[in-house]
């Protein structure tokens, strides 16, 4: 019995991590239909935000606050990722709605940029980027107020762009050559950084012969809260209603006076913020490095597609199913249960290493999608945007 409960707990805990990683994607990809390949990098930003918050609390000194930094980090991770998501949506994605291939390429490009950014970020680069944004967007804003904007914009905006780039790269070059390490020292570098969970999350809850890790329990609760929060937001609030109506029929919603652009931005940042929370959660389990998001992105897409695009409940069920299967196959439980039937047991024993279990789960998902191409919970109705 204890073995059974422990197996169930392990399966759920794998599923919870998958679900948390996929939840944001279920909104961005599922509801909005945007293939966001930078989702993993938004998780990575959340993880780095956690690292920064942890170091900030450490810098204050030893004390009780080091035990609760994780809650602050959760908010910080949500905010950082949501903000990055907002910039991504306003700056890139909104020009590409309805063009999935371009979105795919563009967000992939963004993901590469973000990875390289955290590798090489230092004060000089950030100062350069800020100066560029200030000059270019500030300049454009000023110029636009001129009465003769229409007649000069053909040459004025390229000149402005070039000037801003030139000035900010000069700044970058000058700062890059200064002696002071403040400007040139990399914030994170390309090495993995060390995030340590607070002491109360590091042990485990004794359970028979086993110990249930507190970090896993924390993630399961966090996932449950996030799911509940999303449901509450979508079903019980005014903006949630608008989000649902826009995803069902954009044109009709616009006709009825719903600000679809604002809704898009809000939905996208919400999904991104959830990615940030997931990023914060995975620091409890593994390492934090520029590539951390890439390890989760394929799994997250797999969950959303298996669950059925557009249905949150599908994502939840799919994440739990994949988590359970991964555990039962990978840990050899199925092989153990099938011991009486030797050929079957040997078959499952062959797949009972972690890397082979992934292969089998993948194969099962493909087989399932052959039978039900729209996933476990396909969206029904005529109103769905095509």
């Amino acid at each position: 019995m204890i073995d059974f409960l422990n197996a169930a707990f392990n399966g759920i805990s794998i599923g919870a991590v998958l679900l948390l990683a996929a939840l944001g994607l279920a909104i961005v990809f599922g509801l909005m239909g945007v293939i966001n390949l930078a989702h993993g990098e938004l998780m990575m930003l959340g993880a780095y935000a956690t690292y920064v918050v942890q170091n900030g609390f450490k810098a204050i000194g030893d004390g009780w606050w080091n035990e609760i930094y994780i809650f602050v980090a959760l908010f910080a991770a949500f905010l950082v990722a949501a903000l990055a998501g907002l910039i991504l949506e306003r700056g890139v994605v909104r020009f590409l709605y309805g063009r999935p291939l371009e979105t795919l390429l563009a967000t992939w490009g963004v993901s590469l940029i973000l990875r390289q950014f955290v590798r090489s970020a230092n004060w000089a680069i950030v100062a350069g980027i800020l100066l560029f944004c200030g000059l270019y967007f500030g300049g454009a804003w000023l110029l636009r107020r001129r009465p003769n904007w229409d007649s000069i914009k053909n040459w004025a905006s390229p000149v402005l762009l070039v000037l801003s780039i030139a000035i900010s790269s000069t700044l970058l070059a000058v700062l890059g050559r200064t002696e002071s390490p403040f400007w040139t020292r990399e914030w994170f570098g390309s090495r993995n950084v060390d995030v340590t969970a607070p002491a109360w999350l590091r042990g485990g809850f004794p359970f028979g012969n086993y110990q249930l890790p507190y970090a896993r329990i924390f993630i399961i609760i966090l996932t449950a809260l996030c799911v509940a929060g999303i449901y509450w937001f979508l079903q019980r609030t005014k903006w949630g209603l608008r989000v649902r109506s826009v995803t069902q029929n954009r044109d009709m919603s616009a006709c009825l006076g719903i600000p679809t652009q604002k809704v898009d931005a809000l939905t996208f940042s919400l999904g991104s913020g959830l990615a940030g929370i997931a990023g914060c959660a995975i620091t409890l389990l593994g390492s934090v490095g520029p590539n951390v998001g890439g390890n989760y992105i394929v799994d997250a897409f797999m969950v959303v597609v298996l669950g059925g695009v557009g249905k949150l409940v599908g994502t939840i069920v799919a994440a739990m199913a994949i988590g359970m299967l991964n555990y039962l196959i990978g840990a050899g439980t199925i092989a153990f249960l099938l011991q009486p039937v030797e050929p079957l047991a040997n078959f499952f024993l062959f797949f009972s290493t972690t890397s082979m279990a992934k292969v089998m789960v993948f194969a099962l998902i493909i087989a399932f999608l052959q039978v039900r191409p729209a996933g476990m919970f396909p969206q029904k109705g005529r109103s769905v945007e095509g």
Partner: protein
Amino acid sequence: MTNFNRRKFLLYGSAALGTSVLLKACSETPTEGTEGETTSDSGAAASGDTIKVGILHSLSGTMEISERTVVDAELLAIEEINTAGGVLGKQIEPVIEDGASDWDVFKEKAEKLIDQDKVVTVFGCWTSASRKAVLDVFESKEHMLWYPVQYEGQECSKNIFYTGAAPNQQIEPAVEWLIENKSDKIFLVGSDYVFPRTANTIIKEQVAALGGEITGEDYLPLGNQEVTPIVAKIQQAMPEGGAIFNTLNGDSNVAFFKQMQAAGLGPEQYPVMSVSVAEEEVRQIGKEFLLGHYAAWNYFQTVENPQNDQWVTAFKEKYGEDRVTNDPMEAAYIMVYIWKQAVEQAGTADDLEAVRQAAYGQTFAAPEGEVKMNPNHHLSKWVRIGQVNDDGLFDIVYSTDAPVDPQPWNQYVPDTKGFACDWSDSEKGGKYQMES
């Protein structure tokens, strides 16, 4: 589209040019040596005032983290030699190339270093995949590569000198020590690629020969962080505790140690012996998760002898107080000196055959202790087991009292049992049957 007139073309063109020049200017960071630079007199390299050597490691991509530290160690050795007067009265000039963690690039850059830069030798590579990729180049051009990393063995090229540990200088003593001191039940965990699988084949043969028991093995795809099934399997296979032999690489290590601790599998009951976790990795994983676990290497920063004190001090002085030294870095440092001694004994850097012959038997007072280059192109090295302590360094709990001679061809694997390598004797070569 006649709008795009000449004036605009000039405007955009000059703007683009200007920006690119600026960007180029700020991306140029001062590095030591000449990165990819070729000189006009591309005759014999050693004929000028300098001797050119190649350094070929990944300075970008996923392997950058590890390989950059090795480059640091090589540059430190070259700088020391140059300050002390150089080799044969000439300064060493390193030509640094970036293999970019891409095996094809390694091959390309190796050819470039040999053909264009005319270097007299190359120090390089980390992964076995990159070494295998450049092997052809060095063999077909009869050139010389120095390789500084511990590896799975089963190779003995005439054109490569291996200064890292062969399996019998790291993995085998570690298994022996585990069985003698910890537990005869061993669980194998590794990343899913060539080194862990080859290493585990050796370990399985060895454990069987020593009368121990392999309770299970599992492989994690590179970069995967979900280790719950592995932890569960370890508990099922060894409910009373037992040892774990860990050949995981990279990020997975962090997840593995964090979740082992969370599941209550501590070092008293489940000691983990790692062969890819050194001082640098301890820093990244977090020492609180590794405290009390073990690692097997030839060198630890905590080795106590004057050479090591001197080296660690010099390294920290050059690269910063917070840096640590580790085994591959030490092997990289050694190989530059062994090459230098061989060149000096041969009296030439250009005649690679003479340098190769002179390298055999060279000894060097390395930070790990005295090492010796053997005719089988591997070093005799000291073997040590360390336990992670509170400082994130290793307390040395076991050390051989003399250097262990290398066996490139493994004696536990049936295919290579009884074979050895001896390049000082043209009759024997890379793989010959030993007389029993």
